[in-house]
């Protein structure tokens, strides 16, 4: 057993899904702040990319071997950490999920979650997208359908899947309920991982296209974005939603940091996700209609706080860390400004 002498400072291991994006840096900051306030020792680590499952498992393994009093985990993939979760359960070490948490974990292992509801967060963007394009969508015909593209980084990570689906489903629902178009006028196409059986796939007036770049590399996201932009006028693409920082960057580098958007593709509605300096600039300059932001600092802060509470034996429950839609108008408001990191 890897139990740790209790006379030392309690140690909480935080294993995240990444480290390099500004988003994760903010999570780490929150976690570190909480750890300092609580007087615990904390380590924060995550694999270099979201496909490095084995590295995350190894990180979790060595974290457990170091004898933590509690673990906060954002699993890349729940199935791959089942053994570890079981062994944590057997040692009575509480586990807190954060960010996308540990979906479908075996009952009783995860004490609480500090996470964003990704499905709902992307839904915010879908609603805004409809509002911005309502006139055109309402007037869409089979001869000249309106097309909306969703750029989604990988078709595998659970949280990104939720965002893609959240945007897609919410848009379908909103359009079906608020516009003259019926559900049967909508068609969802593109990457098969994002086309579910319950989606309408035969409509002719509104086309929702799900696009996934070859990889998360800057070059591939950029050329995927460029390929979409090339079709804007031909296919009457009216809106683009990018579900994470990586795809936002792809679009920005294909459009000179967004400056091309109003000039070369006038009227095209772009909505992003998360923050980061380049994206904030794009929103502030109104190249983007707006973006959805989560509260990464609070995610990290809450994760460690919950972990500490669980270690102390207190009962803990899920915390929704929330998401907000920001535009150039509200991005300097005090309650949103705090959420925008770079």
């Amino acid at each position, binding site marked *: 057993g890897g139990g740790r002498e209790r006379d030392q400072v309690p140690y909480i291991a935080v294993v995240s899904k990444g*480290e*390099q*994006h*500004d988003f994760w*840096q903010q999570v780490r900051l929150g976690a570190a702040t909480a750890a300092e306030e609580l007087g615990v020792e904390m380590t924060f680590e995550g694999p*270099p990319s979201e496909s490095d499952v084995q590295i995350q498992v190894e990180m979790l393994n060595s974290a457990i071997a170091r004898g933590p009093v509690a673990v906060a985990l954002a699993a890349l993939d729940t199935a791959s950490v089942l053994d570890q979760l079981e062994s944590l359960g057997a040692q009575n070490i509480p586990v807190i999920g954060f960010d996308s948490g540990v979906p479908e974990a075996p009952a009783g292992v995860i004490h609480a979650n500090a996470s964003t509801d990704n499905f709902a967060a992307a839904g915010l963007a879908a609603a805004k997208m409809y509002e911005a394009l309502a006139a055109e969508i309402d007037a869409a015909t089979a001869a000249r359908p309106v097309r909306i593209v969703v750029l989604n980084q990988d078709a595998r990570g659970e949280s990104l899947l939720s965002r893609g689906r959240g945007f897609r489903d919410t848009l379908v629902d909103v359009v079906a309920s608020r516009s003259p178009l019926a559900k049967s006028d909508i068609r969802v196409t593109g*990457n098969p991982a994002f086309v579910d059986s319950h989606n309408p796939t035969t409509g002719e007036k509104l086309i929702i296209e799900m696009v*996934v*770049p*070859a*990889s998360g*590399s*800057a*070059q*591939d996201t*950029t*050329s*995927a974005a*460029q*390929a979409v*932009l*090339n*079709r804007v006028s*031909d296919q009457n693409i009216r809106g683009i939603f990018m579900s994470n920082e990586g795809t936002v*960057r792809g679009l*920005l*580098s*294909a459009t*000179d*940091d967004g*400056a*091309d958007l109003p*000039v*070369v593709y006038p009227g095209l509605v772009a909505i992003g996700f998360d923050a*980061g*300096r*380049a994206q904030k*600039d794009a929103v502030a*300059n109104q190249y983007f209609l707006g973006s959805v932001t989560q509260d990464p600092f609070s995610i990290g802060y809450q994760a460690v706080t919950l972990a500490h509470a669980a270690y102390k034996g207190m009962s803990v429950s899920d915390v929704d860390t929330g998401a907000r839609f920001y535009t150039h108008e509200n991005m300097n408001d005090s309650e949103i400004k705090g959420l925008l990191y*770079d």
Partner: protein
Amino acid sequence: MAGTGMNGKQWRTLRDKGLQKLLAPLALVLIYLFFGFFGRNFFSYNTLVNILDASYYIGFLALGVTFVIITGGIDLSVGTVAMCAAIVGGTAFRTWGWSMGPSLVLIMAVATFFGLINGLMVAKLKLPPFIATLGMMMVSMGIGSIVSNVRSAAFPPRSDPSGWFRNIFKYISPDRVAIPTGALVLFGVTIIFHIILTRTKMGRYIFAIGSNKEAARLSGVKVERWEMSAYIVSGIAAGISGISFAAVYTTVMPAQGQGFELFAIAGAVIGGTSLSGGVGSVFGTLIGVFIMAVLRSGLPAMNLQAHYQTFFTGIVVIAAVLLDIYRTKKTSEVRVLTPADLYRSDMQRKIDQIRGGLSSTGGGSSEDIPAGREQIQALQQEMKETYRRMRREEKAEAARVEAEEKAAEREFRAMLKKEKD
């Protein structure tokens, strides 16, 4: 035929040498046209600019690594070195408050330093290049993360006063037309590297080392110094690559760059640089890089799902090198001269003589010329027919012999088999 304007020998030389060199550029053009016709809006200025944009960072890496490959070495660290240097520069700019100029200089300095260390390890400590640069790949990846504290480095946008450096690689005019100035930089560097490789001592020694290191050493070439210099060039190129990456993609992430080296090496190899050293050219490398860049931008334009891209890139890499092997084999293959061939070259000589006679008489008696012309034409006609007949006969004979041999072989094998039982 060859008669017009270009004699047979010139034509053959062109076919053997020129065409061989033209094949890669030709492939590039063909692929480009293919995507242009079948891809959606591929023939746009924007796409061209994007292809160029996408080719810079791999392009510079590939140019640099070409030097190393010609020495018979390999540099696996180029990608991570470029990204490490870029992120160090970005951190200097953003976190340490340096201004843009010095930050760019820092990028170049860091990358060159890594090149120097690679060179020292390979040339002085005699580490195998593969392993030395593999180690350096990991080291530079780690250093990038350590220096930046695992934070990504965002370079300033164009609107920022410090964003001027982006114009080096892409100038956007006030009326928003993008001018791919980076292509000029890329071509410029290619030309400089070409001159270094072909016209200077350094280049000469780099080829010599790659061809036969021991011989170079015994000839008094300071092998260590020049071998090292190739790695330094590779480092310098990685520095430029890092800057171009920052200029085009704005954000540099830590622990990035692994995998770039493979594309860089693939580019060099597609362009005809031999991994066993002693052979290569930076122009070839450039073509190789463009082929990959066109593919990578072209496949999404064909609406092919993203994952088909890697697949096709792999196929093209293999096909390119197969083609190269096939074409060198073809040109070095022995063409056996049959009596028919001898007859034809004989006749050709005769005709050439007559023609020579005609032109040497120059403005002589004007009656001779039409007569000569006729004679030539008659001879040519005769040659053609006889040659065809002879070839036909020879082919029939060859087929007959082959069939007989085959039959004999079958019989023989059957016999052997029976004996065994």
